[in-house]
């Protein structure tokens, strides 16, 4: 069988396994969401039996059915794109997610993108002057900063720049009192709101710089580089095709994983900055015991990671001939 199809199958399987696991686990949790729902909704209704219909509406599940039927109902609804109805927001989960996801994507993709580009550039410079002042200082800095969780830094930044200096808003995702749309004020407002969250992620991504530094030093000491110099290749060729390519390649998978775990990583960040994206809604959902929204958010996070890994897997062979895989001969 084609290995690509198998990888795809494995990805689908992973998503399914995670969903099933979440479904089953939440059902056996103490204070399981259905009971909670019934207790919560029941008393307000005239007819307690209506609670079951409500459950059906919100969660695509009839609580009176045995577990496997509930599971079947839930999964079928999911396949049709119906993730249930959020209780706290009082609208379909898909709609909540559709509003939230772009904001998260916006902040996190900038954080990842800036983190990696700066990391690669800085790492390359550090490697070039290996052992010099710049290298020593930045290696120390990067090592410390990498071990600080980004949310600690986020809190510090928030205190200083938002509360003390008032340079940035203390929370929110868009300017107030401005008409949303493609107008200058609104767009700059968005960027203004996103700056602190992006910056706090970016500053702590020293890992990329350290990895790049290590990779570059390895490449700079390699035999093929020495031979390339003896062969008289031009400096740009050596820098781009020999050093850069071989140093950046191993980071590709890391980049894909970072992209995939964007939603997961956004949870804490958005909570701190009260940035209403996926992560913020997820926490809200947990707080409000909004079971359908929780399930929906978890599923999206899982799918994002799986898809990113799948893409990494399928494309790595294109950019690194060594991984070109299975059809090539090993000898």
């Amino acid at each position: 069988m084609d290995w690509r199809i198998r990888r795809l199958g494995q990805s689908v399987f992973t998503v399914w396994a995670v969903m099933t696991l979440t479904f089953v686990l939440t059902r056996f949790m103490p204070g399981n969401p259905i009971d909670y729902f019934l207790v919560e909704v029941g008393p307000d209704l005239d007819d307690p039996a209506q609670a079951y219909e409500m459950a059906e509406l919100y969660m695509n599940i009839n609580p009176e059915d045995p577990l496997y039927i509930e599971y079947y109902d839930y999964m079928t609804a999911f396949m049709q794109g119906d993730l249930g109805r959020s209780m706290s927001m009082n609208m379909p989960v898909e709609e909540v997610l559709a509003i939230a996801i772009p904001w998260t994507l916006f902040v996190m993709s900038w954080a990842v993108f800036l983190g990696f580009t700066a990391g690669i550039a800085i790492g390359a410079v550090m490697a070039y002057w290996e052992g010099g002042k710049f290298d020593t200082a930045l290696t120390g800095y990067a090592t410390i900063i990498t071990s600080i969780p980004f949310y600690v830094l986020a809190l510090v930044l928030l205190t200083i720049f938002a509360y003390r200096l008032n340079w940035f808003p203390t929370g929110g995702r868009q300017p107030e009192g401005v008409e949303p749309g493609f107008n200058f004020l609104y767009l700059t407002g968005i960027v203004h709101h996103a700056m602190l969250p992006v910056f706090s992620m970016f500053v702590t991504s020293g890992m990329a710089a350290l990895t790049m530094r290590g990779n570059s030093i390895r490449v700079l000491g390699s035999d093929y580089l020495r031979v390339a110099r003896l062969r008289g290749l031009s400096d740009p060729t050596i820098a781009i095709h020999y050093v850069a390519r071989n140093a950046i390649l191993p980071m590709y998978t890391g980049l894909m994983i970072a992209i995939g775990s964007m939603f997961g990583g956004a949870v804490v960040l958005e909570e701190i900055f009260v940035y209403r994206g996926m992560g913020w809604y997820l926490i809200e959902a947990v707080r409000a015991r909004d079971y359908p929204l929780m399930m929906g958010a978890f599923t999206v996070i899982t799918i994002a990671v799986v898809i990113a890994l799948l893409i990494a897997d399928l494309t790595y062979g294109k950019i690194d001939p060594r991984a070109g895989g299975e059809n090539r001969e090993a000898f």
Partner: protein
Amino acid sequence: MTISESDASLVDSTGTDTIVELRDTSVSFGMDRGESRVLNEVNIDIERNEILGVIGESGSGKSMFASALLDAVPAPGTTTGDVIYHPEDGDPVDVTGLSKSELKQFRWEEISMVFQGAMSSFNPVRSVRTHFVETLSAHDYDVDAGIERAKDLLEDLYLEPERMLESYPHELSGGMKQRVLIALSLVLEPEMLVMDEPTAALDLLMQQSIISLLNEIQEKHDLTIVFITHDLPLVADLSDRLAVLYAFEFAEIGPADEILERPAHPYTRALLNATPNLSAPLEQMRPIEGESPDPVNIPPGCSYHPRCPLADEQCKSIDPGPYDAGDSRNHDVYCHHWEQSIDDLERAFTESNSDDSPATRNASHSDDAEPLVSLEDVEVQFGSENDGWLDFGESDVVTAVDGISFDIYENDVVVLVGESGCGKTTLGKTAVGLQRPTDGTIEYKDRDIWKGSSGSSTLEDEEIRRALQIVHQDPGSSLNSHQRVRSILSTPLNRWHPDLDGNDRRERILAMLEYVGISPPEDYIERYPHQLSGGEKQRVALIRAMLVNPDLILADEAVSALDVSLRVSIMDLMIELQDAFDTSFLSVSHDLSNARYLAEKTGGRIGVMYLGELVEIGSAEQIIQNPQHPYTQALRWATPELEQDDDPDENPIRTIDVPDQKNMPSGCRYHTRCPDARETCRTQKPELVDLSNEDGVQRTACFRVDDDHEYWDSEPITDDAVDGDEDDDHVNVSG
């Protein structure tokens, strides 16, 4: 310096046929401990169209010599003195004085280089074609014409040009990469090619095949080749002249045949005697005492004097200049007493070493002796079959060892030889219980060693674990670098002889160190591994294995990482220890000369492996002098000799490259390369046949040993037939 031409800086003093001349060329590195001279004022004229073999042990400065020729010494090293290149027409070029862009042009167009790290000389993410193209365009050569030339070169090196050009480096075997690299170094049609240990990482057969190709290439392209190696026999036959480096200086330079037959420098002579080979009587092989000097601390006067049996006061103070030795005008020797050396050294050696080396003995056993370790139909597979959807791995089962049976007796020595990937190390590890076989049994004194250890990868039985020990290939990495010699050696003692108290233990360790020639032991016992030389490390590793009184020791390439001059002494030590401690050795080696030394001296056996099978096993004499299996014959052919062979034999293999192990050839696995293969060999599998006679034991797995076999009536397999056969596409290259 006492050199007369030392003032002949830019003048070509020796006539028109010199291509490169070095005058007082030095390479030095500034180090904390002082300046380190890794090439010390050497003088040499390299002649046009010659093959110059440069011999040096590790730490003799040979790689620096190579780099100096292209002014390519890695920073922060500096080259001083003159390196002068004489183009065929045009003015001499002062290489060290070239500007950066001139140097860029000079390298690869005039002198190119193939160096040690050939395996990693390619950019892993660029195709082979790109390597050629970028080299051509960097030098403003016509790319199309250059690629055509590259194809011719690849073809000459028995490679398929199209396939090679389209490949990525990781898709090629080591031998192919090496040949592609040679083609790449010749694509700009340089005048001279410098090769620094170009074949060191390759198997015997590949090594020898490349050496023979070099000869053809040199003639065809009118090349000058400088071939730098630690392996004297390797270049003995190939070279026109030999230059011997010792302690960063030349000891002797002269015509190859003269140096081999009448070496004038005591070091050359000692080196020749210390080099294991197939033909010289064992008694003639002796180690060189002592070790090479440190580059920051070169002895004054003749740098060889601490090790030289002829050294006198003059040697200790006055640097010997070149003396003309021998009949030919271009035989230079850097020794004050070279005449005496030619006459006397033989005597000096015999006196000092007469009873040092253990006498040859006979470890062979009577047939009814009980085997110590007995292997029965052992099979080892690696990798796993892909079993379905959730398995991320691909199906990649490699059978490293395929149904091998043999016995090891008490006081026995068995040396396994074969190309890399033939399974010899796996078999060795399996025999001492470090690798669990996937099928078959291993018995130690009639007990199944894996009994009772279900599923685990370590042996259950403590006693058996003690009885079976290993000495690794690279002593440096097998000794814990954070422990002193004392603790390295007391660990096994504590474990296996808990009854000894601290003092007894110490005494025992000291005695052992003394015994293996490490003295003063009180000093060494407190050292860390990095404070030991390679030979000392290997000795400590040997002691560590011996201290627990094992019955069988696996010596995995125990001497191949060592310098040539140390190999004989370590092997002598192994033999001595084996005798003193009543152990058996199972040794693994890719070098037939080493195998012969060890096995012949102990009366042991040599087992030849090919693609996971034992194809021939027998006494050292039989395997070396009377090999029956065509593969053993090929290995024997590939083992370089210390003499100039006027009439080189035909290369006895049909294809240079080993078949893909995931796609084993049918029938006799050697049929894809065997020169004697016939149709029968393609379908039937030969069994080991006992050929033992009064000359020694020998078992061979080839149809040719049976006069009545149907093999003799079947059709020979010719190369055309192989190429046309569709299930033979795993044969990489026909050669």
